[in-house]
């Protein structure tokens, strides 16, 4: 009896003392400025003078499943899609900020923000394996990874935003050997409309390194060039997203190492040199979108442990934080 009691006691004690990380707790985000001093970057230098420009940029923000457009200081938010509805698979804001496109349950929709009118564009899309949805610079077309009855394997599609007509730009069968037998996902469309970024990848088992490659697709010549091969490096084990700079000079890459803690990398497309811009083990770092200057981008950070505090900043291509951005959630476009 005594042994049994002692066993139950010890068992209860050890289980109760188990690390909390197995079942983390979520809390509401804090203000971004709360986070500046704490191990942000590789050089951990804290800007002594915060140079905050005029906050008249409009950005697409996601916060707890809600998509809204807002000024960079978080003011004048307009809700585009509520988290109370079914989750979106992908979304994109047109460059003139007048149209919001989203893919949900295999249907593609376009919301005219001023008129608050939504149309369903689908003709024959039967699915998407993932990646991003992006508007063309002229706001006439949308690009995404999709498949349809004629092209059941995943392809990069270009969809007319008026008629819904689908053009299959790149079929898996027209890619290189690695791509043709693995998964393909579209990431980004250059600001000048000439180039697309996509990845091909193998889904790993947990703990194994992901095999992936990143490609640029030239729309005029209909040719792809491989710009990154995961097998040649060990910094990025898992690729999450990429974003092409407005001048087509850099590629922002968000991914994780073996740990996995997300970090932001910068691939110089002229030299093919990759630099890691963030580091540390306290925060996940993501960068989804460039600013129009082409020399800076929005950085989103989340503490990896409770209370999972989130914050946004503008960072330059040297990895320096320029100023914090007072937005709840993440800036994704």
């Amino acid at each position, binding site marked *: 009896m005594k042994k049994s009691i002692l066993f139950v006691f010890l068992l209860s004690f050890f*289980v109760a003392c188990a690390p909390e990380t197995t079942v983390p707790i979520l809390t509401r985000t804090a203000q971004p400025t709360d986070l500046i001093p704490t191990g942000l970057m590789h050089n951990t230098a804290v800007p002594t003078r915060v140079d905050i420009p005029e906050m008249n940029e409009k950005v697409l923000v996601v916060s707890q499943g809600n998509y809204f457009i807002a000024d960079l200081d978080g003011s004048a938010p307009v809700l585009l899609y509520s988290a109370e509805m079914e989750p979106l698979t992908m979304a994109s804001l047109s460059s003139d900020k007048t149209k919001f496109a989203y893919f949900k349950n295999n249907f593609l929709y376009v919301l005219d923000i001023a008129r608050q009118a939504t149309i369903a564009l689908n003709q024959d899309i039967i699915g998407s394996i993932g990646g991003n949805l992006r508007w063309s610079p002229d706001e006439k077309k949308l690009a995404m990874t999709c498949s349809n009855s004629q092209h059941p394997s995943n392809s990069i599609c270009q969809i007319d935003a008026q008629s819904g007509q689908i053009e299959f730009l790149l079929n898996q069968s027209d890619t290189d050997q690695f791509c043709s037998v693995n998964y393909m996902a579209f990431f980004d469309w250059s600001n000048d409309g000439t180039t697309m970024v996509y990845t091909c990848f193998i889904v790993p088992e947990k703990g194994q390194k992901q095999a992936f490659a990143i490609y640029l697709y030239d729309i005029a010549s209909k040719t792809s060039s491989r710009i990154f091969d995961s097998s040649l490096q060990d910094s990025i084990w898992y690729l999450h997203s990429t974003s092409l700079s407005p001048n087509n000079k850099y590629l922002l890459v968000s991914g994780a190492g073996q740990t996995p803690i997300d970090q932001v990398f910068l691939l110089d497309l002229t030299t093919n040199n990759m630099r890691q811009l963030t580091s540390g083990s306290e925060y996940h770092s993501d960068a989804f979108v460039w600013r129009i200057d082409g020399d800076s981008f929005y950085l989103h950070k989340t503490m990896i442990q409770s209370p999972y505090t989130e914050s946004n900043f503008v960072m330059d291509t040297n990895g320096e934080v320029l100023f914090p951005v007072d937005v709840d959630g993440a800036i994704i476009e």
Partner: protein
Amino acid sequence: MRKVISRIVLSVAVATLVAFLFASMANAAGPYTITENTLYSAGGYYPPIQIYNPGCAGNYCRYLVQDNYPDTWRWAYTKPNMYQLWVYRPLVGQAAAKYWWLTYRYGTTKDSWFVTVDQSKNKGTWAYLGFADYVPNDKGELRLSEACVPGYWCGGLKVYWDNMKYNTSP
């Protein structure tokens, strides 16, 4: 004296156990079940075929016969902060199958893992697929295709879509 110590130890043990149970209840939620009636294409053209069979959870499953032109179908998205997930192996299970589960944050894929489950083994039980490295997340997703799995027999066997379940944190 011994009795007193025993009672103290017992009291502490019970109190610890109760505290642990309350703490667990506060942190985790679920399990939530998603049935195979919520399937969406994730690159699949031929939809899995529904059958009635008492060996399926809720008496119904869907299946496709394994081939080399796989169709991928996903269950409905989970609630935010999916943490752990399981899939049910129906009694009619025949083939090894590769499940692909994902989590998303701000529209970007975070967790993305393959787990091979042999549906012909441990039938009538739940197979644990793993836990998410990324919490908080906006949603989780489970996919399955009828692709042959290297290392396993692949000769006209059926791959079944049945119930999945998950919990969230908190």
